[in-house]
């Protein structure tokens, strides 16, 4: 089909702006996880070691809240950037959930099980990326609500029954664990262990991916870039 080029052709997949946001998010989520799980698992030695490492139970709380404020600030900035900037608008259009994504998901499962012969063709973001993005966004919004209501405990206790705070504490902890495990597992597979990217998809650092990878994993995006003359 195409002529063999001397070296692999690269295309930009993550702009510098998104790489910075992504790295800040990694850092913030790690701080939140380490300080949060230290409290959640304070009964075992690792939790206790972490609390000591984080400067005691009170400073741990301070770190956790500082990171949480930073995370919420990033959320607000991200929402602003996605809605108002040119690049953000384009990306929002790409990552927006459509009925097609659910159809793709079902088709992928059917293909993997062998009941259909055609694997779905993804655009820049397939159902894996989109589910992850929107899952994380909703998760952060929800965990912020429970987190803030626990932080402002005197305020919350004035209006809500105590059982709400008990629930908020449980939901906050388990939701954090839930999100952490999904992010971990999903990233480990999609960005590290997946045969097409093993040992790691470098896009989060360099911003670039191989055009050939795009052709295999995101064919619609590949076609689009070809039509636009980028490739």
């Amino acid at each position: 089909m195409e002529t063999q080029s001397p070296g692999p052709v690269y295309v930009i997949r993550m702009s510098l702006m998104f790489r910075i946001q992504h790295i800040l998010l990694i850092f913030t989520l790690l701080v939140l996880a380490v300080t949060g799980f230290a409290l959640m698992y304070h009964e075992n030695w690792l939790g206790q070691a972490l609390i000591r490492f984080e400067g005691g139970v009170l400073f741990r709380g301070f770190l956790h809240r500082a990171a949480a404020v930073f995370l919420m600030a990033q959320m607000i900035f991200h929402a602003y950037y996605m809605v108002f900037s040119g690049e953000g608008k384009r990306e929002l259009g790409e990552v927006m959930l459509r009925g097609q994504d659910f159809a793709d998901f079902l088709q992928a499962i059917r293909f993997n099980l062998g009941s259909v012969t055609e694997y779905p063709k993804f655009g820049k973001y397939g159902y894996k990326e989109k589910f992850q993005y929107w899952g994380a966004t909703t998760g952060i919004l929800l965990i912020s609500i429970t987190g803030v209501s626990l932080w402002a405990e005197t305020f919350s206790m004035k209006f809500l029954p105590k059982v709400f705070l008990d629930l908020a504490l449980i939901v906050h902890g388990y939701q954090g664990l839930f999100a952490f495990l999904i992010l971990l597992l999903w990233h480990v597979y999609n960005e590290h262990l997946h045969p097409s990217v093993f040992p790691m998809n470098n896009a989060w650092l360099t911003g670039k991916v191989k055009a050939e990878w795009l052709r295999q994993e995101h064919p619609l995006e590949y076609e689009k870039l070809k039509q636009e003359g980028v490739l």
Partner: protein
Amino acid sequence: MRKAAIFAGIAAALLGVGALLFPPPAEARISLEKCTLCHGKTEFRKILVDGKIRELFATADSLKGSVHEKKTCVDCHFDVSDIPHRERPRRVTCTHCHYKGNAEGAPQSDASLAYFESVHGTAIARGNVKAPLCQDCHGSHQILKTKNESSAVSQRNVAETCGRCHIEIYAQYKMSIHGVAMAKGIKEAPSCTGCHGEHMIYSPKDPKSTVYATHIAAQCSKCHGSISIMSKFGIETEQVATYKESFHGVANQFGSRTVANCSSCHGTHEIRPAADPLSSVNPANVPKTCGKCHPGANPNFAVGKMHIDAKKKEAGIVYYVASFFKYLTIGTMLVLIAHILLDMYGRTKRLRGEK
């Protein structure tokens, strides 16, 4: 005859030697007789500068029945030699006999040595004349074994003994659930020493104290965490575990001194059951109690159960939500892993198809 005479002689000699070796407490008798010349008069007393009266009446009966029954005046008042006393006799020093390895066989343990480190002992050392010495708590002439119910430091009497100086605290304690239980003769109820310890009493602000902010929970749970004790009175033992799991409890375990411990909410000497309108944890008083740390606490603070354990069904919705999340997380992980395996399998198939 001669034999009998020799025998009598030997016996007499032996008796003589015996009399030399083991003299009857003649000295003691003499001392007692001499002392009671003055101290045996019932009206023998001294009016102190502050108007208080010091009774100086003491007879052979003073020590009767006490652990020092066989002792005599100068055994303890050993600084008395002249009559009338040239100087005012000093206060009795119990460690004159009660030291480790003493020849008298006076009981001595490290527990009582802890007194010298205690808030009372150090106050004495600093020259506080109001601080108690041994005899201020144990009594002077009528010292009885602690196990003896009539002893000033028996479980039933020790609060009153402490209350001689700590009057207000004694009044609070007497009306508290612990004081009332003690008055009813419930042996498990704590008296002062139950929480504060006996000889090693420290100020609650001293980290060595059994009632220091970070030690309170452990001290209360000695009884309140024991099912065998609490089941007798129909009191839950959950409170200890649920406190430890709470924000307050975790911060406390990791050394926060400002976070609420048991006594921050339930009080110290004035602990009463929640149903009592005077209790600090009675719903009517909860806003004030919580308000000590959470300014602006309102009656809504009293809505709902304070001590809950999300791992137990009694926690209701909290338990079910926690269980839901547990299975949701496990379920999602399994589904994700299944999807990953399926995806890897499908991808190999897809790439093979491409060739």
